[in-house]
């Protein structure tokens, strides 16, 4: 890739990651009462994670994936629902993570592309949380557990190979 374009690609990715960091923190702190610190990736917890995926289309198209470690999912769910962790069921965790993914996806995309028209599909549980080459991927550490966010785009403006 010519140097000028490469610099531009790096700068774009930097903006993408800054938006993801800022918006993720805002979402988690506002409605889920926890903070998250962007960190280097450690995917050892992926095999037991609660994962949600949302397809999006419109002026940008692709897929948003959220993976949350089991203990983080329980802490997040109990916080959101106003319950003790012992009172929070597996189904509660799944439903809250679905809603978290919905809010995160909507917030990240509309902050990154505020002038765009986007439609989000209904979030679904399940799927692989691993980062594909070219995808935007960010891992976070929470006070309890971890979380990872991936945006895989059909749109070249998002995905940088």
């Amino acid at each position: 890739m010519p140097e000028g374009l490469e610099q531009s690609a790096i700068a774009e990715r930097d903006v993408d990651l800054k938006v993801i960091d800022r918006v993720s923190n805002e979402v988690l702190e506002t409605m889920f009462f926890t903070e998250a610190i962007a960190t280097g990736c450690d995917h050892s917890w992926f095999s037991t994670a609660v994962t949600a995926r949302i397809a999006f289309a419109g002026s940008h198209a692709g897929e948003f994936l959220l993976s949350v470690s089991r203990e983080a999912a329980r802490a997040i769910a109990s916080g959101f629902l106003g319950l003790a962790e012992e009172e929070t069921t597996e189904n509660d965790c799944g439903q809250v993570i679905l809603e978290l993914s919905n809010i995160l996806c909507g917030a990240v995309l509309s902050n990154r592309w505020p002038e765009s028209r986007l439609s989000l599909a209904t979030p679904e549980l399940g799927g692989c949380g691993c980062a594909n080459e070219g995808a935007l991927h960010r891992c976070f550490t929470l006070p309890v557990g971890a979380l990872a966010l991936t945006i895989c785009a059909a749109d070249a403006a998002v995905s940088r190979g």
Partner: protein
Amino acid sequence: MAVKPLVVGISDCKVSREIDSMLVTYALGSCIAVAMYDPAVKIGGLLHYMLPESSLDAAKAQQNPFMFADTGIARLIEALTAGGAMPRRMTVRLAGGAQVLDSEGVFQIGKRNYLAARRILWKAGILIAAEAVGGEVSRTTRLELATGRMWVREGGDVERELMEHRGLAKKVMERV
């Protein structure tokens, strides 16, 4: 009428219905002050806690429950309800949670303390009327038991009354 200050120290809590008194706490850096007041029975309480979760040190929490958000807020609510307060009537305000220099720099304790208060109050079914939190300033706060009014001083600034929030949700409509 001379007002009598009832000082709440660090990791401390006081509940009173002495209407000639003022609950006051100083040096709120990363700590959080939780003020609760029931105007129907004129009873108020002020908690000053240091850390978000008692699970961090269960032994310390046994010795002093007011050091932690979870045990401290629970005790505060208990003491107020034992004194005739009803949670649904109470005005609850927060102050503190500033970012202070942290050599580890990983999780800012001020923010964690603030999030802990919000999470615990949500779980207890209590909404927050007003708050003066965050930033990098140390705060002092006082709660007047005759009226339930609360004031905050931030850094070297003039003291201001902590009023109920208005205008939070207008932001979106105004932005467009």
